[in-house]
């Protein structure tokens, strides 16, 4: 299985984490206020790109995530713009209260990078996977929450972060993503979802890698005469209510897809908006109350029903439900 293949997308050579490293380095070059805080994972998250060029603005705080967040918040208070980078699992789960007080409630300008989000880190297994990160971020009201879906939007998100008022969360990933957008003049506006494919029969709403999977699914559904709109909901908060309401009213059926637990993730937030704005049949592709074991990422996606095929099946079902309604 190759992500984006059925949709005719070109897969990036570089894993998204490397793209993140490049984007962070670009930003550090142009913005001297940017400082980077690492939890002894810079080699994995690729935050080390900054270490190599700007060692004085790079701090490895060690295997100590609570301290990492606190020190980062202090640097923000001292007038710098911190990028606090680690695995989303260790960072959010270990340092939640520090993030809650020093970052979220204090509404500081800072970005938290949750690397290795989802299950596609694969073989290291459930202790390292970030399958609850979006739900945890959801519990922190002041955060802007961004899940880039391709190399171009990762670059755009990292570049945009320091201009966003208040704290920002960006999810990064261990696997390569296909190119959905051009690298130059990327259409990316925080809080504004992108329609990446037009369609009238249903809307597939995804974030992260599930946008490409959604495009693959749309290509398959088109062969059956079902035309799916695909919406890249790269910003989970603030949520683009207009785009979701339009999806509901114009296509009448919605499939949400995310590499995350169904509880508290993107889909459950979309459902709340749909319920209020214009209730239509919905289906959800995501992790159903499980911890996912170690394994090859693509095998795991298949086993836990996070593939284009699963979106196709959900699409067929939701269209049927729409007709029956």
């Amino acid at each position, binding site marked *: 299985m190759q992500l984006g293949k059925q949709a005719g997308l070109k897969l990036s050579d570089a894993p998204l984490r490397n793209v993140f490293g490049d984007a962070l380095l670009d930003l550090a070059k142009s913005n001297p206020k940017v400082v980077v805080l690492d939890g002894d994972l810079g*080699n994995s998250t690729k935050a080390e790109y900054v270490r190599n060029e700007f060692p004085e603005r790079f701090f490895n705080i*060690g*295997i*100590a995530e609570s301290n990492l967040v606190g020190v980062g918040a202090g640097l923000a208070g001292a007038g710098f713009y911190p990028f606090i980078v680690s695995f989303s699992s260790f960072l959010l789960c270990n340092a939640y209260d520090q993030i809650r007080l020093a970052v979220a409630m204090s509404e500081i300008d800072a970005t938290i990078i949750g690397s290795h989000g989802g299950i596609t880190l694969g*073989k*290291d297994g459930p202790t390292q996977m970030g399958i609850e990160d979006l739900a945890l971020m959801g519990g922190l009201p002041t955060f802007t929450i961004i899940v880039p879906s391709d190399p171009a939007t990762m670059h755009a998100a990292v570049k945009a972060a320091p201009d966003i008022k208040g704290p920002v969360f960006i999810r990064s990933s261990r696997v390569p993503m296909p190119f959905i957008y051009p690298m130059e003049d990327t259409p990316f506006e925080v809080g504004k979802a992108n329609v990446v494919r037009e369609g009238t029969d249903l809307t597939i709403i995804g974030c992260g890698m599930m946008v490409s999977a959604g495009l693959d699914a749309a290509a398959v559904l088109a062969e059956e005469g079902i035309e799916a709109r695909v919406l890249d909901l790269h910003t989970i908060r603030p949520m683009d209510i207009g785009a979701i309401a339009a999806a509901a009213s114009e296509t009448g059926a919605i499939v949400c897809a995310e590499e995350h637990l169904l509880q508290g993730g993107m889909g459950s937030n979309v459902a709340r908006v749909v319920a209020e704005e214009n209730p239509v049949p919905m289906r959800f592709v995501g992790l159903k109350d499980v911890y996912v074991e170690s394994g090859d990422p693509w095998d795991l996606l298949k*086993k836990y029903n996070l593939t284009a095929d699963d979106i196709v099946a959900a699409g067929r079902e939701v269209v049927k439900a729409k007709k029956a309604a």
Partner: protein
Amino acid sequence: MKSTATKSYDELREQARQLRLDVLEMTTKAGSGHPSSSWSPVEVVTALYFGGMLRYRPDEPWWPERDRFIMSKGHAAPLLYAALSHAGYFEREELWRLRDVGSPVQGHPIQGMMPGVEATTGSLGQGLSLGLGHVLGGRLAGKNYRVYVLLGDGECEAGQIWEAAMAAAHFKAGNLVAILDYNKFQETGPISREIALEPLVDKWKSFGWNVHEVNGHDIEEVLSTLQLVKQLEATGQPQIIIAHTIKGKGVSFVEADFTFHGRALNAEQAELAREELDATR
């Protein structure tokens, strides 16, 4: 009951070599994992499981009286699994399923998923607290088992380790034995470059622990220190053995290159490693 078996030092050294080989095969086959982190504490784990230190029953893995071994540096899971299989907890064939979809032999240990796996670890810093809980529970239940916790040196950057250290001294956990795999490296580099740990002995002492230092690859020294620590249990002071080790021990080119952290050897490197490990037989 395996634990009473007494082996000669030569036999123990051979046992250690076998564990290193198994770690190599497991991680190379899986194409990922942490061989270098698994190789540094091999003699410590060998002494515990095969040197008559731990009291355990492979056919009754959750025997309430068992001594506890908690692999707090969970990324050394391959070593834990190899030791458990050699100790008779499960078939050696299971080892070759490390990190496969559907396999209980997880990338990091999950409590109870394989017999003998005492704790879920992999997010660093958590094992010493669990160990103290087992100590307090054993005391309450009137049992006299001992609790051993294997810590990484980088792992000691985590605040929870020191929270547990303080509490263990407070609760006079004389039967709590921490073993620190002091291999001088963490993930991104030498500990001394990343976060200074020294003076390590003084730190543990000041937290109320009795500190022992050993050459972690000298099985005789490790064993005699483990014996000594047993005798000191009645003092009520928690005991820590700082085991000076070499990350990647046994395979020269891994010892020499810390960027092997978290990387499996490829087929070619594995062949060289096998030759080196065989040469030490």
